[in-house]
C-alpha cells in the first residue's frame, strides 16, 4: 500500500474508487503469473527435448498445430461449438438448480422429502447420465446439453440450499411492511443475499461443466473440442490434442478475467473494503 493523504483516501473510497491503484501493485501479480507460466513452458520444452517422441511434443510443435488449425478456421468452429454448449448447460443448470435449491432451503418438509433424491443424483457418475440421455433421447443437441445440466444441477442445489437457509428474515419483513412487489423482492432482497452462493456455484460450475461437455462431445456429437480430441486420439496426434485443450483453457481463462471477475467486483462493490 502506498502512502497517501488521509482525506484523499476516504474520499476515494466513498466514491467507490479502489485506493490500491498504484501501477506497481497491479503489475506485480501479472508479472508473477507471466514468469510462472514461462517457467512451466521452459520445463515442458526441456523435458520434450530430453525424451524426443511423437507422443510428447514440445511447446513449439503444439504452437505450430494451433496456428494451422486457426488458419483453417477449424479451431474457432470447434471452440465455438463447445463454448455454446457450455453456456447453454451452464444457464440451464444455474436456473434449475437455483430454483430447486431455494425452494428446498425455504421449505423444510420438501427438503426432508427430496434430500435423498439430491444425494442420489449427486452420486450418479456423469458418464452414466450421458449414456442414458443419448439412449433415451437420441444423439441430439438437447440430450447433450440436458445431460451436462443434470450432472451439474445437484451441486447447484446443494449450494443454493445453504444460501436460502442463510437468508436474513429481517429483510423479508422490511419488504413486507413496505409492500415490495414480487420483482423487487427478488432483485433487491433475494438475489443480493444469495450472490456469494451464486458466485460459488458459478465458479465451480463452469469448471465442471466444460469438462463434462468434452465427454458428451466425445461420445455423441460431430463437432466441438471433445470431438476433435477423440479424432486426434484415433490418429495418435498428441500435439493437436494439446493444442485444442490449451486453446480452450485459454478461452475459459479469458472468460474468468473479463466476465466473471468484473461481474463479481460489481456485485460486491457495497462491501466495506478492508482498511
Amino acid at each position, binding site marked *: 500500500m502506498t502512502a497517501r493523504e488521509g482525506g484523499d483516501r476516504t474520499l476515494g473510497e466513498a466514491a467507490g474508487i479502489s485506493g490500491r491503484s498504484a501501477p506497481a501493485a497491479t503489475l506485480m501479480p501479472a508479472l508473477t503469473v507471466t514468469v510462472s507460466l514461462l517457467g512451466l513452458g521452459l520445463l515442458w520444452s526441456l523435458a520434450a527435448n530430453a525424451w524426443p517422441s511423437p507422443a510428447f511434443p514440445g511447446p513449439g510443435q503444439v504452437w505450430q498445430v494451433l496456428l494451422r488449425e486457426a488458419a483453417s478456421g477449424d479451431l474457432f468452429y470447434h471452440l465455438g461449438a463447445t463454448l455454446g454448449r457450455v453456456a447453454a448447460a451452464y444457464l440451464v443448470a444455474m436456473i434449475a438448480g437455483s430454483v430447486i435449491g431455494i425452494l428446498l432451503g425455504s421449505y423444510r418438509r420438501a427438503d426432508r422429502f427430496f434430500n435423498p433424491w439430491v444425494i442420489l443424483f449427486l452420486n450418479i457418475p456423469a458418464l452414466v447420465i450421458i449414456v442414458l440421455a443419448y439412449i433415451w433421447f437420441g444423439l441430439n443437441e438437447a440430450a447433450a446439453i440436458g445431460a451436462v445440466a443434470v450432472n451439474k444441477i445437484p451441486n447447484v442445489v446443494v449450494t443454493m440450499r445453504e444460501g436460502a437457509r442463510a437468508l436474513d428474515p429481517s429483510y423479508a419483513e422490511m419488504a413486507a411492511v413496505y*409492500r415490495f412487489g414480487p420483482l423487487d423482492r427478488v432483485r433487491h432482497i433475494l438475489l443480493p443475499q444469495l450472490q456469494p452462493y451464486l458466485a460459488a456455484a458459478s465458479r465451480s460450475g463452469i469448471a465442471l461443466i466444460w469438462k463434462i461437455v468434452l465427454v458428451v462431445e466425445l461420445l455423441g456429437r460431430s463437432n466441438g473440442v471433445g470431438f476433435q480430441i477423440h479424432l486426434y486420439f484415433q490418429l495418435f496426434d498428441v500435439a493437436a490434442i494439446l493444442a485444442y485443450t490449451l486453446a480452450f483453457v485459454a478461452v475459459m481463462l479469458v472468460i474468468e478475467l473479463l466476465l466473471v471477475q468484473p461481474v463479481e467486483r460489481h456485485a460486491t462493490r*457495497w*462491501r466495506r473494503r478492508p482498511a
Partner: protein
Amino acid sequence: MQPVGAAAPLRVDIAEKTFRSAQGVSVTALKNLSFEVPNGEFACLLGPSGCGKTTTLRILLGLDRQFSGSFQLPEGGSNRIAAVFQEPTLLPWRTVEQNVRLALPKELRVKNLDALFDTLGLAGMRSLYPAELSLGLARRAALARAFATEPAVLFLDEPFVSLDGRTAGQLRRLLLDVWSARPTTALMVTHNLAEALALADRIIVLSPRPSHVLGVFDIGLPRQHRGPEATNDLLRSFHQKFPGVS
C-alpha cells in the same frame, strides 16, 4: 400541512397471544390488550423489557398472524404503514437514497426527497452504502425511509436503543422535526420513560407478562414547553399515577 387520513383511529384489541416453544412449553405474552391511538397522535407503548411490546408491534405490522383478537389500522390517505425497526434494517447492497426510494410505491419513486434528507442531515450521504454510515446515521436513514412513504400510521420499535445519550437526544429532536411537518398517527415502543415523556402525546403503560394495559398517561403539555422543570413535574405525576413503573 394538515393531518392526513380520515378520523379512524388506531384500534387494538388483542385477546391473547401465546408462544409455543420447541419443547411444547407455552408462554402467554399478551392477554386482553386493548387501546386506541387517536388520529394524528404520537403514542408510546411503555413497559418492562420482555413484556410483549415488540410482539404487539409485530402483530400490528402484519408479521405475526398467530393471535386471537383484532386490530384496525387508521384508514384514509395513503393506507400505507411504515416501520422503524430496532435495527436500521437497511439493505447493505443499496445506497442510502436507493434504500429510501425502494420503500416508495412505484408512482412516488421519483419524488423530490431533498427536504427530507436536509431535515435529517443526510443530504451529503445519499450515495453512501449503509456499511459506510455510523449507527446513528443509519438510524436517520431508517427514519427517512419511514417518513418518505407518507404513511397513514408509523410504528417505531425502540428506534434509539444502543445509541449514546447525546446521539439519541439529537435523533429524538430530528424525529419530532419530521413528524411535526406531517403529524402522522404513530406508535412507538420504548422502555425509556424519559424518552416517552419527551416525545409522546400519550403513554400507554403495559403490565409485565402476560401483558395488558395498566393505564394511559395523557401528556397535556405541548412538546415545546417540556423543559427540564416541566419534565420533572410530568415525571412526578406519572409516578403518582403508576407507582412502581419506572
